[in-house]
């Protein structure tokens, strides 16, 4: 076993083990959590980058370039594999990069305390495990680790709402994971295997009752992940969780937890079951596409009517993941590439947006759309970065948001799925509806004019109080926070020119999924 093959295991094990360190050191020192976490995430990021150079440096099919670690030396299909292929490596880069970036916010922006950073590392470890695992049961384990980490982090928010939101997420999330587990059970009954590649080889050969079992498994797995990815109408945990989580936690959860779940769904759909199975299962593809398309419309509509910015962006996630799920269901190569690019792009943009929201809450005391009035004049840098990210989210080129939308749209047309194509093109307008609302508040509504009208309403009062308490706690906006938001905004635009590069990097995986180009 060469040294690079140790990396997938280290990336998963190191953060989970080091998660205990902040607590242990916390017995003696008060503020070690951040440093330990920083050192760990820097290490993880460096490891992932090295892994990426190996994976993308190789040439050949997805299976040939992948770095595979067999845990404990037990060979597949009995043992558990950790696989870094062209797709999972890219997701791992997003996970470690975002985890590193969010730290720039949490150092001063909070939440503080060593237990928070233990949760942070546990979550990152879980996410990396979920990304790399090559075993469907092991995936459930990591799903639960990610869940536990998120519940803990969300509940660390102040006030009873955070506790309720965490509890709601805990109940619904566990139900989702359990439904997935039932699916895995059916799949195991049908095939007698849990290893993904082994399953991929077995599933197409299934017949009769075993095929029915596999179809049942497929239904359970899809519904389980529809909950985890927060597809309408199973999304109800997500807006609460995003809104009430502490400002330092929301970017992490919004950018990574749902993203990695959506990645896992892609992995199951295209590696485990395969396009052939989905296409031959009656209505499977139609159901996936419909769930996604409905989520796009419902999510955006709900986003438009929100008053709280975090909640608005949360509903926006429902809609954007709808786009991704719909693209999965189209079963074309181009749409799949589009979905995966949008997965990464959306994660990046949402991370930046939620960090910006955190900065604005600290520095300007604004949390509602109305309270954002006049922001551009008062906080030009964070407002500018946020504007760039919002515009990228609409999918205006050149930006990463456009690249994803373009491939998904081309994929929809190739699949001749006119309804989905219509939803995708209209999604621009739906996204614009809530984005423009915020932009207009930030740039073209003078703060004074609005405050005069709203002075004694509860919303502004709440915002001001919030800002007040923040100052009392000594929280302030640091250069690091601003730098990270500006960097993310610039990256979102810069990656808009990398559409072809993304395509080339993801091509081995997409080819391994063996989709017909135009069914």
């Amino acid at each position, binding site marked *: 076993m060469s040294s690079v093959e140790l990396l997938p295991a280290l990336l998963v094990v190191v953060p989970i083990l080091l998660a205990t360190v902040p607590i242990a050191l916390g017995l003696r020192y008060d503020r070690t959590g951040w440093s330990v976490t920083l050192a760990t995430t820097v290490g993880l990021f460096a490891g992932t980058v090295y892994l990426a150079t190996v994976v993308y440096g190789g040439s050949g099919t997805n299976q040939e370039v992948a770095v595979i670690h067999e845990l404990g030396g037990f060979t597949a299909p009995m043992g558990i594999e950790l696989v870094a292929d062209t797709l999972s490596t890219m997701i791992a880069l997003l996970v470690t990069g975002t985890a590193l970036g969010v730290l720039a916010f949490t150092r001063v922006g909070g939440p503080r305390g060593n237990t928070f950073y233990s949760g942070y590392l546990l979550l990152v470890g879980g996410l990396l495990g979920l990304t790399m695992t090559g075993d469907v049961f092991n995936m459930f384990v990591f799903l639960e680790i990610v869940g536990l980490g998120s519940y803990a982090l969300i509940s660390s928010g102040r006030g009873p709402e955070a506790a309720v939101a965490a509890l709601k997420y805990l109940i619904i999330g566990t139900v989702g994971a359990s439904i997935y587990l039932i699916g895995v059970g059916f799949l195991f009954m049908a095939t007698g295997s849990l290893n993904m590649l082994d399953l991929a080889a077995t599933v197409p050969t299934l017949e009769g009752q075993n095929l029915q079992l596999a179809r049942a498994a497929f239904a359970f797995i899809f519904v389980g992940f529809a909950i985890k990815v927060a597809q309408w109408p199973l999304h109800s945990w997500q807006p609460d969780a995003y809104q009430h989580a502490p400002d330092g936690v929301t970017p992490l959860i919004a950018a990574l937890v749902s993203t990695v779940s959506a990645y896992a769904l892609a992995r199951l759909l295209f590696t485990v079951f395969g396009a052939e199975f989905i296409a031959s299962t009656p209505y499977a593809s139609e159901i996936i596409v419909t769930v996604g398309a409905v989520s796009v419309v419902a999510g955006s509509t709900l986003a438009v009517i929100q008053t709280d910015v975090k909640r608005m962006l949360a509903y926006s996630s429902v809609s954007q993941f709808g786009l991704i799920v719909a693209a999965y269901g189209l079963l074309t190569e181009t749409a799949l590439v589009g979905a995966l690019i949008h997965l990464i792009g959306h994660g990046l943009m949402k991370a930046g947006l939620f960090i910006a929201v955190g900065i604005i809450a600290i520095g300007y005391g604004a949390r509602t759309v109305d309270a954002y009035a006049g922001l551009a004049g008062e906080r030009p840098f964070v407002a500018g970065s946020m504007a760039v990210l919002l515009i990228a989210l609409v999918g205006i080129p050149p930006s990463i948001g456009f690249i994803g939308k373009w491939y998904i749209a081309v994929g929809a047309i190739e699949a001749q799925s006119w309804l989905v194509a219509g939803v995708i093109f209209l999604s621009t307008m739906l996204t614009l509806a809530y984005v423009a609302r915020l932009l207009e508040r930030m740039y073209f509504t003078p703060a004074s004019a609005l405050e005069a009208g709203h002075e004694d309403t509860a919303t502004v009062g709440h915002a001001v109080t919030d800002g007040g308490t923040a100052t009392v706690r000594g929280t302030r906006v640091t250069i690091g926070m601003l730098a990270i938001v500006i960097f993310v905004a610039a990256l979102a635009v810069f990656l808009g020119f990398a559409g072809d590069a993304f395509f080339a990097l993801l091509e081995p995986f997409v080819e391994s999924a063996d989709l017909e*180009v135009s069914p």
Partner: protein
Amino acid sequence: MSETVVTDLRPLAAVLVSAIAVVFIVASYRYPNVREGWSVLAALAKFAIVASMLPGVMNGTVYKWSFAEATGLDFVAGVDFALRADPLGMLFALLASFLWIFTSFYAAGYMRGLDEHAQTRFFAAFAASLSTAVGIAFASNLVTIFIFYELLSLVTYPLVAHNEDSEARIAGRKYLTYTFFGGGVFLLAGTVLVYWLTSSASGTDTATLEFQAGGIELLTEAAAADPAIAQAAFYLLIAGFGVKAAVMPLHSWLADAMVAPTPVSGLLHAVAVVKSGAFGVARVYLDVFGLEFPTAYPLSVPVVGDVPLNIPVAILAAFTLTAASIIALRKDHLKRRLAYSTTAQLSYIVLGLSMLHPIGVLGALLHIPAHAFGKLTLFFCAGAIHVETHTDYVSEMAGIGKRMPLTMSAFTLGAASMAGIPLLAGFVSKFYLLIGAASGAEVAVYGLEATWLWIFAASLIVSGVLNIAYLWPVVYTAFFESEDRHDAKPVFEFPAGGERKSYGVLEGEADHDIASDGGSDDSTRKDRYAVNENPSDADVPFGPGSGAGSTAAGENPVAADHDDTDQDDHTDEHHDSEANEHHETDDEEHHDDHHHGGAPLGGWERRSPLTFAESTWLMLMPITVIVTGAVTLGIVPDYAVFLELADTIVAGVTGEGVL
């Protein structure tokens, strides 16, 4: 004509020069003079870069810069991000960059004259708009043009919503909705369809979105296999560009966008933005589908039979140019009147292109610069009147020729050009449009095609008459009426269907006009007794007539005191640090007061045209230059490069020029 493609950085430089200027404009926000200096410098540089490519382009060279060649990467798989200076692109880029030079002077005069807030944002967005407009001109494929088309919508939004009051915000929302529906939905959908058609026709999965004079060949092949999809793509692209070209029923954003400052209405909403739509329609007809496509794959309509694809577009355009002219008749607000005129004139271009006859196409292409010079003159004049006298309504302009003789003379010439009076730019293009319609009717194949073309020719003439009908009253009231003796304007002042009582010049009506209201119930013209009514008072600090203002101010001491203080504060602030924009927003109320105008007490002051005392040189110089351009285009079209350029374009598409 043979075409040689040369790799050159200049198309990219022409796009980027004003984008880079944006950075400098924002960075020098503390120093207004430096900031405006960057605008002018960028405009000059941009024009120089574009003009330097002109001789080569006229000789059949195409300058091209490609992202793929520069970096080895496509923008998205199979599609390059490329800029290319071909004759059609040059026509638009040359026009936009030339007019920007003078608009940047004018904008400086206008914004300072009104002491506008957020000037840095204004000038930055303006420079960015020009960047994207030239990007649209030089875009070499559908994806690249889509990128710049979307960016143009985005960067012009701050200009529309500039006033930051609820009217501007609502106009901004409408603007975003319309333009993004056009760009993000129609245009993108059409582009994706073309991508799919060409990639399935190529047999190798490689799509072609690159513009080709005379139409993309692969697309023509694909259309043969699947006409329905090709037709859908055609209409989606036309609709996408039609939104910005303000073809009815997608036009209503344009009139609302007139809340923007006048330089924006002038250069962007009469030239760069709206023409990008018309230009896009030209690209679709000439370089994407080709002139044969619409007749080769007609729609089969029940009862009527086969209808070529261009005819519905042309019908909409002909309807728009007639209807918009009629609507303009009833608009009292001068800028709105001009906006409907723009709507009508843009449809001339769309109609000319849709007639598909080479001469009609030539006329349409020539109408792009012809209308630009004429309409920019008109808008500049409207803006100068607004800055100097705060008069926005035609009904309040009686006798204004005395106050602003040069401006109103230029307005007259611009109006004559709009109406297509010979010796002015508008005549040349309309002449070719009419010839095009007639020659098109001669060679028409389909049943009703010839009839339609004659109807289009008739609508062009009717609209010409209507042009006179809605622009002449402005000239008439300015020069041949006086503030104390003028007729009522029944067409736009009275309710539709006419007034029940008789009207005429009543005793004391003129006084009433000034003291209370212009006879309109428009709510924006409330508060009519403030000294802001007084035109010369508002000249501070740039206008020459503050002495005259004091007389009028004396009659109304309380208000005058209050207002003087206000003005003084403003002036100080203005000189000390213009950067301090927070203060400006507090003055929103103050700005609102500017919306009422008309002659001051005692009538218009007479200013000689020879002393250039009616406004600042920053505004008079651009007006003079642009109106001279309109005359030059009308008298010696052969020497004013645009005719030759338009002929080169037609020659590139049809194989031979028409001249």
